[in-house]
């Protein structure tokens, strides 16, 4: 892979990834396009320098770690990993095909993937373990865990929040993709999360609230902290394609050829 082909601008990476996400979910007849478009800006910021992780340092012990705990938004992560040179872009074209290297949830063995995810509430405890081990062994590098807001329904999320605070893990960062929608309905109609940021504050975390589609705000929010850091990134599910935005339908529906074309035209106009 030509290293110069990598993106250094989060905005450019995110747009390129958005095209891939539409294409992947269309070709692979895959779900969760809305979730991927929601989180793609967060991941783009992390993979363009806010987290120190790239194909050249992936085997280094003290690099940063990124775990996408909301494993269903896999098309966003795989797009970014391919575009940043972790594996061949061609792999994206066989997404969710029989026997293909890339399937419908984040799966280990894929270059750049830390943990298989798909069942919610697993990424944070795992990342917490890496952060604790690094603390005890004086290994540098931060651990970023990107979770969904629906994932804050899980007890293991709050168990981890307590443990991280108790051990003052200033090397652990949680980014919540706060798009307000979960599987069947609005998060507040499903199981009230608000006041979400206050909950993290009460659990002892430094908490920053940002626009999850504003690259500058996101970058600034990842600056180091003296305590475990929670970034509540307010996002829009399906961001960038107006007929997918803020709609539960696009948690499941995969775009057909016509819809994919429409989406691409939208992206051309919006970015």
């Amino acid at each position, binding site marked *: 892979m030509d290293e110069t082909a990598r993106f250094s601008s989060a905005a450019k990476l995110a747009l390129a990834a958005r095209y891939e996400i539409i294409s992947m979910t269309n070709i692979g007849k895959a779900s969760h396009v809305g979730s991927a478009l929601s989180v793609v800006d967060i991941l783009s910021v992390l993979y363009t320098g806010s987290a120190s992780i790239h194909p050249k340092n992936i085997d280094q012990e003290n690099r940063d770690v990124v775990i996408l705990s909301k494993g269903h938004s896999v098309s966003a992560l795989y797009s970014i990993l391919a575009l940043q040179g972790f594996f061949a872009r061609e792999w994206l074209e066989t997404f969710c095909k029989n026997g293909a290297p890339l399937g419908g949830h984040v799966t280990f063995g894929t270059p750049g993937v830390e*943990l298989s995810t798909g069942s919610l509430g697993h990424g*944070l405890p795992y990342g917490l373990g*890496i952060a604790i*081990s690094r603390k005890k062994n004086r290994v540098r590098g931060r651990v970023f865990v990107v979770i969904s807001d629906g994932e804050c329904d899980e007890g293991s999320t709050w168990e981890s929040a307590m*443990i991280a605070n108790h051990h003052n893990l200033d090397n652990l960062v949680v980014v919540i993709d706060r798009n307000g929608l979960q599987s069947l309905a609005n998060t507040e109609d499903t199981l009230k999360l608000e006041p979400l940021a206050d909950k993290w504050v009460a659990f002892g975390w430094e908490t920053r609230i940002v626009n999850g589609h504003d690259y500058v705000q996101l970058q600034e929010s990842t600056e180091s902290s003296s305590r475990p850091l929670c970034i509540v990134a307010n996002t829009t599910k399906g961001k960038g394609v107006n007929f997918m935005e803020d709609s539960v339908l696009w948690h499941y529906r995969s775009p057909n050829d016509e819809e994919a074309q429409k989406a691409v035209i939208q992206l051309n106009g919006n970015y």
Partner: protein
Amino acid sequence: MRDAFIKVLLNEARKDPSIFLITGDLGFGVLEEFASELPNQFLNSGVNEQAMMGMAAGIASTGKRVFVYSIANFPTFRCLEQIRNDICLMNNSVVIVSLGAGYAYGSLGYTHHALEDIAVMRALPNMEVVVPADPFETALVTEFLTKTKKPSYLRLGKSNEPNIHKVKPNIKYGKFNEVIHGDSGTLLFVGSIGVVAELAREEILKRGYSVSVVSVPFLSNLDKEYLENAAHKGPIITIEEHSTRGGFGSAILEFLNVEKITARVGMIAADQKNLSLTGSQDFLRISNGITSSRIANEFTKLVGFQR
């Protein structure tokens, strides 16, 4: 068994800084020395098995051999998906250490009885289920588990179990461990229930048959050669302080079937007819049908001889 375990673990951890011990807020009077001597290799997670097990997997992913210490069903059922996804799927180097096998915490009630753990743990991919018979075997398998990397489940009794082996035995991975040899049949057991198997041997002796009493510490890697010989010799009775469904006896039956070994097999396991019953370990063993006379009767039935 827990004392034998922690003694060896502490000894190995002094030499090997990659050994890490997590407790789910249990181990009063057992773990203090480890915790104070090796604080950098120890963590009390609190009462939070799901996060604890995911965290254990994360720690293991940084190159550690992580032992997670807890009681009965807490480090298994409460966090089963963390074990399945974060440990087994990811093949992370975690040993789950569960105290209180079977009815070891009998008087504490069914919440503290570990009776389905073997069935569930041995169903998981990559998982090595290890059940030592006595403190001798516990020390040996603990040392073995510090040297390997595989996800493992170590099922221990409690404390003050007698040594069933007269002298320290040799443990070999994948090999059965004979306590006493006999020529007419075989009593295979897992864990501290071996003492009941020994009593059954005495009863069977009175009926004119001599049987081997054999510990099976490695449930996920059974001893084909031993089983072939045992099947040829006479009836095989499996004995476990665990539910009949999916446990040690089931493992033996599956193995015999896969290996096409024809054998006469009897299974002695917990009836679980009255789940609200509490009492001592011996009382609950007897109440749930794990008795020497039942083992002896099962044997004589199969050998075609009933006095």
